[in-house]
């Protein structure tokens, strides 16, 4: 109907790539984790976009409604969000320890400190 058929996908891809870029390009470990989170959140959007049904209702059964969005991607992404935050937590704990051991959380400076 419009040129918007794949609009969701493409913006989602742009989001993913900005997250991925931040993850590679930025030296600060916490920034890398932020990049990782943006990357993952955009993948969640991809799934939810796949599950979306126009004019459908949220998948909560109600009388008189016969078109729902697909519940399965929602289930998967609920799991994935939790997995993502668990990873972030572990990464942050590592960052704290690295700061304690090296006095910095900048990737480039870590490489300069040889043991």
């Amino acid at each position, binding site marked *: 109907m419009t040129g918007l*058929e*794949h609009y*969701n*996908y493409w*913006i989602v891809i*742009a*989001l*993913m*790539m*900005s997250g991925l*870029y*931040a993850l*590679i*390009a930025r030296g*600060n470990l*916490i*920034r890398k984790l*932020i990049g990782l*989170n*943006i990357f993952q*959140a955009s993948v*969640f*959007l991809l799934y*939810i*976009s*796949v*599950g979306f*049904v*126009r004019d*459908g*209702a*949220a*998948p*909560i*059964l109600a009388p008189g409604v016969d078109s*729902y*969005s*697909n*519940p*399965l991607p*929602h*289930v998967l992404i*609920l*799991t994935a*969000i*939790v997995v*993502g*935050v*668990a*990873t*972030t*937590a*572990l990464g*942050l*704990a590592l*960052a*704290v320890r690295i*700061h*304690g*051991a090296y006095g910095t959380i900048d990737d480039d400076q870590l490489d300069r400190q040889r043991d």
Partner: protein
Amino acid sequence: MMEELIDVLLLAALLLVALQVIGSRGLVAAIMTFGAFSLVCAGLFVTLDAVDVAFTEAAVGAGVATLLMLAALQRCGGESEAAPRVHWGALVVVLGVGGLLVWGTLDLPPVGEADNPAHQHVAPRYLEQSGVEIGIPNVVTSVLASYRGFDTLGEVVVIFTAGLGVWLLLSSRRREEGE
């Protein structure tokens, strides 16, 4: 139509926020903007009919993750960062991967059509039967707790694993003292 307009606008806003996160000066600002990013995400999930996901994203993404980051930042001290430079290698990787993905989505069925293959297989049974088989109206909860209950168990184990890992890492300060 209204729904779509909101969707378009929110997505555009999301991209702007994301770029803001990446370009921001100062870690505190970056973390706060990231929190905002998660909130906009949650909003988008609502427009895409994923209410449960929206709640979780708002609570876990915007809430817990942001708090954890701030806490970590506090323990690491407010470190000054080098000004961001264009990282050409990363740009090449990102453009390559993104290009591939765009190509890969070209023949995906349009977003939102009810006869997309994803909606034809497996999911219909959840919508039709879960009310009878499980007996609660929220299909997402039914699938989560029952049909794919094992994934949910795995999810709990993931949290436990991360908790254990964090405890293992932070319970000892031996290393720092040793060096």
